Structures are given as C-alpha cells and as structure tokens.
C-alpha cells in the first residue's frame, strides 16, 4: 500500500513537471548581454590621407598621430589557411585577404564614408563611362622597379580581361556582352572606358595591380600555368609587391608571416615611410574555439568575438589588456523566403502544390507571416542580444540603405487582419484554413548543422503556429537544400542567408533580377523566354538595370531606395536579423580607429605598438 502511494506521488510530480515544462516551451526573454556601445560616436577619426610630393615622388601621407616603429601584430584566420598568394587566383576569403595585403589597388574605400578614394592612384576622375586615373610618380615595387601605367594596363588587359585566374571580376563588369577598355595615355596616366555608363565599375578599380615584369612570364606560359603561379609553395623572395607588407614566411597549417615593405609609398607626418610594424603575422587556426583560447592565452592580438564569448570577454576586459569594439551589424542578411513559383517542372507537375501557390503568391499572406515573426525575441535568444532586427534588403551598414523603411513590432492582430482580408479563417480548434477550406500546412527548410538557422527555424515555427498554421520544420543537408532551391524547386519556405556588400548593391542582381541564378523566390529555368514576371518583379528588373547605369551616387540611391521599398512591401524575403560584429584588440596597439564598413585593422600601415 505504501509503495503504491509512492508511485502515485511520483506520477503526480512527473505530470506537474511535464506541465511546467510545456509552459516553458515558449522561448523566454532572458536577460541578455548589453551590446558594447556603437563605436562611431566615440572615435575621432584622423583626417583623410593626403598626397604630398617630396623630391618628385608622390607619397600618400597618413594624418594619424605619429607612432614608434617596430613590433608585431598577430592576427588569425580560421580554416586551412591560404590556397594561393596570387590575388587574381583567389577564390576564398582567406586567400584574398592575405594576398591583398601585398598588392594595393588603384583605389580603395574610405573607411568611414565608403566612397572610393585614391590609393596607388594619385587621383582619379569619373565622367559617365570614362575614368581617368593619374598614378603616383616615383613610387616603387618592393624590388625597386617603378610602378607605372604599363603595370595597370597589363593587369587589366592581359590578366583580367584575358580571363586568367578567377574570372569573377571580369564576369561582373561585362556590360551588354562587352568589356571595358583600358588605354595608356602616358607613363602615369591611364584611361578606362566602359561600353556604357556602369557605376559598379568604380569599385572594381580597387582590384590589385600586378607588377608587369614579374607576372608577364607567367601569363605567357598560359592559363594553366597561371593557376599555379604564386602558389603557397612559392619562395617568399620571389614576390614583387606594392602593399604595406611582403611575404616573409608561410608555414602550412600554422601561420603566414609578413614583413614591412621598405618601399611603401605611405609616409607619416614626419615623412618617414610606413608601416610602423615590422611584422604582421596571421596564425592559421582550425576553429573559433581555438582562436578564442589563443587570444585569451595572449598568442593573438586581435579577434572577432561571437555570442556567449562577448559577455565573457566583456567581464574580462575590465582588468585585461584589450578593448572590445562593436562594429555594428554584419553585411550578411538572414531571411525566410517563400516559393512563389507557379511553373510546372519537366514532368508536367507543379513545382509547388497549387493550393500553396495561392498562399505564397498572396501579398497579404506574406505580410501576415512577416508581422507574426518576433525578431526581437530571436535577437535576444539566438544572438545573445548581439544583433539588430532587419527589415530591409540592403544590410544595415550599407551606404545604400533606405533609411525611410522603419522597423516595426510583431503584431498578431495585424497578421490576422491581413489573413482575413484574403479570405483565410480559423476552425474551432484555432487551425488556419484558406478560403477553400484547406488547412494551412507548410514545410519549412533550412540547412542542417547551422545551429543559428536551426534555432531561428524553431522560433519561426512557434511564431507561425500562433497564427494557427501547421509548420513542419525540417533541417536538411546543405547540398540537398541548395539543389532544391536552385534546381528541383520543390520547396515551400526556406530560411537562408546571403552575403552582401555594404558598398555596391549591384552584387545583388543575381538575387533580385528575375533571370538571376539566385532569384530563389521565383526561380526561372535556364533559357526561359516567357515573360511571366509580376509587376513588381518588372519594376525591380528596371531599377537594377537603371541603378547600374546611373553614375552619380545620389541618382543611384533613388533607384536602390525604390527597390528596397518594393522588397519591404512585397516581402518575397522576410528578413530576420543581422548579427553584430564585435572585435577585440590589445590596448598596446595605437592608431586603432575601428569603422563599421572596414573593420578594425584596415589601416594596418598606421597601427603601431606602444611598448
């Protein structure tokens, strides 16, 4: 009898426990980390670098406070390390970052305003389809040979236009099937001409310039040889570079060491040649955890922090030798998207179930989903509070962001109103039915293994179930998801992310133009000729085409503002949030001016160590 009493007691306890757990299933708003203050307000950026001519040599002069020479900065790169040191061959971030340390471009981006400014070029002027570049006189490659117009013309004609190495630069500047032209006016003047006005071209002028005398023999040996030119096995002495640093040593899977380029053309206000640092080291670390340990152990000087680590380091910061900077929202976008496809596949079947097509193609339905998503809660619970809710197609740090598009709160009432407008109703149990009485049941996919997107999926599912929808959330393997999105097209809703550029919206044309390869919400098969674009798709096509043709920034912004407004209204993508980028750097480094657009070590030549 006594035993039975215990059993009953345990049962009751279990039921109570289960009950309370069920209640707690709803994500709770936990007190989370306060993101570190935004950096822009507290940093006094030095004046812009300016041109000075000394003994006939056109230097670029840093206006940052004068520092001491010497010392090393140790940064890191996650993954397997560089695949090549040839900036024209690199296909991954690490290789590009490391090779671009050694090779400067004609122009660069202003770290704060994002406008193009001269680098290797002394100055430039853009007029519609013509770009006139004047080079610096008397500046040299690391081997002492002068940098002239021949190098520029060679780089563009013989490497980029000729299709050597990674052709993505070339592919992105073809206008109506035609390439721009480049002509040498004199030894220090070059003229670029695009087939018609094409604004994104100016960003391409920050492509590195190659030394003709070092690259020409490799180019002559053909494309196949060029793929292996300046590979990671190259002797560091064989590099002829123009950047602040040149390669000193590459130890596979351990580190890349750069040393200062004694011929660099940027000087300080005392007219001494920069960079201040003797060495710049990139440690190759396998994963984020190891990187954090190395920073904590003092082996790294600068690090990007994420999630829970931010809170921990914020605590450590008080009695430690580093400072944490908040660089603002990331450039990537994360979104929930619908399959608006109404076409049949090769077997004559609809890609999307016709009853679901009715829902997804209904703007009210898409907006209802949007209003039901609780972005704030996701930022708090998934991104540890280190994120910003996102409502626009351009990322929050984009210079083309349409600031008139306001964020709004979650509102189930608005959602329900919108659904009612389109004839949706609810049965007695609260399930959502469309006007033909079909239960609204949707498959939601994302790529398995990405814990952030999986967490978003779970919360989206909960949010939409509040509207009475039935959501089957299935993380699937990345490759099969890509295949569904781009080839088989049999999906309902997907949570995905894309990278973007804060400087040039034209990169998004693959996503937004109706014939784009990544136009995932309404992907048309290759060589599709029928014009079945919706009105707003047509308008976006027009805006993207015109936006690239207009050259003046204010003009362009109008086009891109309108496309963002359409995206904001039509909601083919329901944007979720942008994570914040948080970086830490040791305080012994001076002349550190973090900028949201450029990161923390963009001015590596000006950074110095205070011992």
């Amino acid at each position, binding site marked *: 009898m006594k035993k039975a009493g215990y059993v009953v007691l345990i049962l009751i306890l279990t039921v109570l426990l289960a009950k309370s757990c069920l209640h707690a299933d709803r994500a709770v708003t936990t007190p989370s980390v306060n993101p570190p203050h935004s950096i822009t307000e507290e940093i006094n950026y030095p004046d812009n670098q300016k041109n000075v001519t000394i003994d006939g040599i056109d230097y670029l002069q840093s206006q940052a406070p004068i520092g001491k020479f010497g010392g090393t900065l140790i940064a890191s790169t996650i993954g397997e390390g560089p695949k090549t040191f040839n900036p024209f061959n690199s296909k991954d971030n690490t290789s590009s970052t490391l090779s671009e340390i050694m090779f400067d471009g004609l122009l660069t981006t202003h770290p704060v305003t994002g406008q193009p400014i001269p680098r290797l070029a002394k100055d430039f002027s853009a007029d519609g389809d013509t770009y006139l570049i004047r080079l610096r006189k008397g500046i040299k490659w690391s081997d002492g040979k002068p940098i002239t117009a021949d190098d520029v013309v060679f780089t563009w004609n013989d490497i980029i236009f000729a299709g050597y190495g990674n*052709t993505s630069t070339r592919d992105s500047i073809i206008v109506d099937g035609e390439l721009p032209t480049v002509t040498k006016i004199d030894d220090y003047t070059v003229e670029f001409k695009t087939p018609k006005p094409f604004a994104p071209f100016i960003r391409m002028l920050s492509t590195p310039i190659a030394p003709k005398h070092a690259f020409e023999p490799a180019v002559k040996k053909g494309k196949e040889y060029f793929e292996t030119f300046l590979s990671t096995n190259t002797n560091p002495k064989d590099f002829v570079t123009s950047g602040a640093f040149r390669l000193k040593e590459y130890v596979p899977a351990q580190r890349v060491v750069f040393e200062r380029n004694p011929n660099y053309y940027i000087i300080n206000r005392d007219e001494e040649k920069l960079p201040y640092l003797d060495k710049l080291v990139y440690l190759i670390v396998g994963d984020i955890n190891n990187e954090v340990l190395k920073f904590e152990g003092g082996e790294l000087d600068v690090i990007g922090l994420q999630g829970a680590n931010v809170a921990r380091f914020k605590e450590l910061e008080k009695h430690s030798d580093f400072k944490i900077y908040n660089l603002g929202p990331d450039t990537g976008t994360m979104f929930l998207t619908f399959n608006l496809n109404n076409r049949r596949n090769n077997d004559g079947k609809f890609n999307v179930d016709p009853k679901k097509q009715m829902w997804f193609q209904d703007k009210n339905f898409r907006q209802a989903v949007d209003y039901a998503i609780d972005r704030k809660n996701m930022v708090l619970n998934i991104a540890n509070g280190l994120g910003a809710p996102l409502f626009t197609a351009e990322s929050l740090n984009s210079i083309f962001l349409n600031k008139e598009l306001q964020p709004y709160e979650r509102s189930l009432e608005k959602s329900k109103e919108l659904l009612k407008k389109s004839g949706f109703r609810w049965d007695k149990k609260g399930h959502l039915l469309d006007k033909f009485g079909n239960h609204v049941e949707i498959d939601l996919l994302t790529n398995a293994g990405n814990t952030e997107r999986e967490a978003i999926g779970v919360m989206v599912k909960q949010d939409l179930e509040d509207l009475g929808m039935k959501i089957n959330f299935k993380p699937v393997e990345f490759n099969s998801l890509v295949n569904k999105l781009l080839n088989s097209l049999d999906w309902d809703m997907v949570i995905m992310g894309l990278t973007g550029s804060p400087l040039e919206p034209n990169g998004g044309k*693959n996503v937004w133009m109706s014939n784009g*390869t990544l136009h995932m919400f309404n992907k048309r098969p290759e060589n599709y000729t029928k014009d079945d674009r919706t009105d707003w798709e047509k308008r976006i096509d027009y805006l993207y085409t015109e936006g690239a043709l207009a050259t003046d920034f204010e003009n362009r912004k109008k086009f891109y503002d309108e496309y963002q407004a359409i995206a904001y209204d039509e909601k083919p993508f329901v944007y979720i949030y942008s994570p914040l980028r948080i970086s830490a750097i040791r305080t012994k480094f001076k002349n550190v001016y973090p900028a949201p657009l450029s990161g923390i070590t963009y001015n590596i030549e000006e950074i110095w160590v205070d011992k």
Partner: protein
Amino acid sequence: MQILIYILKRIFQSIPLLIIVSLISFFIIRLSPVDPLAELRLNPSVSQETLQKETQRLGLDKPIIVQYGKWAKSFVKGDLGITSNGEKVSTKLKERIPNTLLLTTIVIFLTWLVGVPLGVLAALRWKSKTDRILTVLTSIGMAIPSFFFAVLLLIFAVKTGWFPIGGLTSSNFLEMTLPQQIWDIAHHLILPVTVLFTLSLAGLQRQMRANLLDVLDSDYVKFARAKGLSEFDVIYKHALRNAINPMITLLGFEFAGLLSGAALTEYVFQYPGLGRLILEAVLKSDINLVMASLMMGAIMLIVGNLIADILLIITDPRIRVKA
C-alpha cells in the same frame, strides 16, 4: 630465399585488397551528398561560367566510374593528382608527413620504453600493491576520451600560461638560434605527446602484463623453475621471449598508425599534421587528397603487418618451421 618468396607472395596478395579498398572508399566519398561546390553556388558574386569551369576542372561532370578510372590510372603511375584548390596532393602530404611522424614516433618510442617494463613489473608483482596502483592508473588512461583530455590540457595551458596553445612552432621561430628552436618545438610537443602517451600507454602496459602472466602460468615455466633455474633466467630468458610475440604483432599495427593515428588530438592542438589535413579534406570532399591518405593508410597497414610477420619469423622458431 624463403623469406623473399614469402614477402613477394604477400605483396601480390595485397594488390586485390588495395583495389577493393580504393573502390569502396572512392564510391563512398562520391556518393555522400557533399558537394564541393555548394558554397560557390550560393555566393551571389560567382557567375554561372565560373561554376561550370569548376565542375569541369574537378571532373564532376563525368560519371563516377569514369572518375574512378581516371584516378586509378594516375595513381598507378604514381601521380596523386591535385587537391580541389589546385595544389599538388603530393606536396600537401609532404608538408605534413614529417610533423606527424615526429609526433607519433616520439609517442610510440615513449610508450614502448615505459609501457613494456611497467607491464613486466605488474606481471611479476601480480596482485601486489604496485600491480593494483598500475591497474587503476591505466584504467583511468583508457577511460579518458582523447578529445576531452586534450581540451582539458589546452585549458590548463591557457590558465597557467606554461605551455603554448597548440601549434608546433612559435611565430618568431625563424629568428631563433638552433637550441632555442629545438626547445620551442619540444615545448609545443609536450601537451599532445602527453595526451597520446597516456592513451596508448594503458593498452600496451595491460597487454604486456596479460601476456607475461599467461606465460608465467605455463607448464614450461613451472618446469624451468622446478629444474632449479634462477628466477632471472626463468623470466628474462624463457618467459619474456615468449610473451613478447603478441607484442610484435601489435608493433605492426602501431606502424600503420604512424601516419593516421592522431587526427583528433592534432585537431584540438591545431597541430600541423596529416590528421588535421585529412579531416578537413573529408569535410569538403576533396577526393584526391582523401583517397591518397586512405591508400597510404591501407599500404602502411599492409606493410606494418608484413614487418611484424617477418620479425615474428625471426624471433619465433616455431613459425619458421611452419613457413
């Protein structure tokens, strides 16, 4: 002469084995749903032409069997092909093999140097306090997962600052003098060696102990003792020589593990060895690199066994008679 024929026979026997191993591994890798180009496909700035070019370059547009044929043909010729990044597989392997060999030979050397005597000691002091203590210690060694142990030691290194946090050399290695360089490498090796040593010591010590106990219990040892031989002669002349035989087989396997045994530990300590390279290659389905390493592993195993068998023939007259 007989031994030569025996070796040749063994080599011929291993050829079909290698073919089967290569077939199975090739198909498993290719049939797994890892698309080496998936990342590129979702990158808005990558054009369709670039994707097609990459597909052709990696041979992904051809049926699997053709891909296998191409790979096998060049493998037989001694060409390991190129990685998905266009680097030569052989150079990639050459960069890493010395590092891994350095780590594994030190570990094997240490474990045998310590493990065998400890095993003998435990067997001789069977059921004594020494034996019990050793059993407890080795049980702990066997029970700790290598991954976990490695992480623990890393945290220890961070907290105390006594050891570098992973890697093999410091960033200013080039500027050091030779003795400094040797110390630097040794300093970096201490933690990974500790992890691997603890793990393999346990197994080896127990094996040795069990073997010797087995032999000590046999009739001929009892006979030798009855005959009045000194305890030293009984153990070191008769018992130990017989107990060591199974250890030689084990040595064959250790040889196979020389190049592939430490992937997890290498990964945690960011050690620039083969294990880490191959782990990364598997994750992105870099077929030539993975195949080269798998084949290398298979060949090392076959060679290791062969060496063990030959050593056995030398040490054990009974096998010689049969062969």
